């Protein structure tokens, strides 16, 4: 696992960003699970409860729940506590809309099991790629 990897997916929203990965294997329902003022995950028992989205590349399988979740992503970014970019296994409309309206680079069709929280990601959403530098290598 300690080798740099180039994962190829599909561009959903163009753009290039880099940052530390915050990874969950649970689907995310943005509405009601994140504090829009702080960016902290407040949903009880969520795999990443207590983590903060701010400045992270958010990696998760797909979105779910109320379509208001799109707005939540917009609000987080507007409040300066949102993620920098999004990596999904399968793009679902809630997060797609949220990423577009808040201008977050996003790719999908990525095997997210290849990424762990703390890995560093160079996300070239325009090309549909995520270059992953494992935490182990960075340490």
């Amino acid at each position, binding site marked *: 696992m300690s080798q740099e990897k180039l994962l190829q997916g599909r561009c*959903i*929203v163009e753009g290039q960003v880099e940052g530390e990965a915050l990874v969950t294997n649970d689907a995310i329902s943005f*509405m009601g699970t994140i504090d*829009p003022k702080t960016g902290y995950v407040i949903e009880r028992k969520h795999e990443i409860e207590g983590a903060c989205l701010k400045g992270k590349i958010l990696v998760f399988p797909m979105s779910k729940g*109320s*379509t*208001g979740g*799109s*707005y*939540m992503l*917009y*609000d*987080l970014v*507007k409040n300066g506590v949102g993620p920098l970019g999004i990596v999904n296994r399968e*793009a679902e*409309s*809630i997060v*797609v*809309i*949220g990423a*577009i*309206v808040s201008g977050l680079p996003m790719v999908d069709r990525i095997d997210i099991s290849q990424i762990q929280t703390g890995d560093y990601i160079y996300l070239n959403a325009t090309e549909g790629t995520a270059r992953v530098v494992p935490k182990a290598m960075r340490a």
Partner: protein
Amino acid sequence: MRLTAEEQKMLDGAYGETVKRSMKVLVALGEIYGADHMIEIKNVHSPGVSYRVAGNAGLGYVEDASKDATFRVPLTLNTIGIDAQDWEKIGFPEEFARKQLELSEAYERMGAIPTNSCTPYLNGNLPMFGEHVAWGESSAVAFVNSVIGARTNREGGPTALAAAITGRVPAYGYHLDENRKGTHLIRVEMELKTDKDFAVLGYFGGKLAGKDVPVIEGITRRPTLENFKALGAALASAGAVALYHVVGFTPEAPTRQAVIGDDVEPVIFDQAAYDKVCAKFSLKGNVDFVVLGCPHVSIVEFEEIANLVRGKKLKSALWVCTSRMVRDLADRMGFVKDIEDAGGEIVCDTCPVLCATLTQRGYKTVATNSGKMAHYAPGLWKLQPVLLNTWECIQTAIDGKWGE
């Protein structure tokens, strides 16, 4: 996706940032779902307009949009989080009410029609057979697709907004002939009479079909509008059904062959299946709260309720949920007074599922004729539900209890 010149102009920002962003959303969705072009829509019914659903995030987004965009096609508003006139009397918190009114105003600045109802088809937003629209609110989607034969996907607040701002949706899903065929066949082997009976069938069918397209055969007596309303709301909440067919009655289903062919084995809905669903919603004992009007009552249901409560005194709280327009008509007919004199409340614009809160009322149990309400009540407000037909609901309200 192929875009027309006008659509490309929207995407290029010729009409401002919000139009551009909206078109971008629709193009991205179109690409995800494999649409190759956009469809012009006739109108929008927007969900996500209760502040409890939209939250501050939604409020901020819609307010931002309202600064540089207006709607290209008519948009009616779904059920909001308060009774816009009587919220204080009903006891909704002022802070919430203020936010709700801001949200509604932001929509209205863009041109929204403040129907504030999940039955827009009874309140002047009547799509035509075969017409493409962009509707949200699952019960209304099921009605307009199935009973009227217009065409929409299940839109959420953000896509409904984008659709109204651009007048477009991507061509996929239920807009296309090939996706409007049935996937599951249900054979009804019992007589269905009341709205509750149709709600029970809907609950059963929703669990079975999930987000697919159930076809119902074996119904012999023509369902009324109110029956269809109850059926669709339950199908869409117990499952996520956006389109169903009732053989011999809904416009795209003259025969079973036309919608699902002859090779599908039916699942039987009989008295045993019926009873099994009812057993899930079978509270006995004290009932604090009785809810009728999910979906919002028609004037016909309003009259039926007024006839049942006239001259009675209710022990349980009773909400009759409807649109302002139906209420005003009922008021002229004396039905509002009948219900209020008995101790019931007419609640406009909102409902127990989308309203600000119910906790201030301290209710523990609810009786309703709505499969959708029974489905959501426990999770939302910790209300133990019992599913009854309309006259049983009123009897329960009179007695303050059920089944003892």
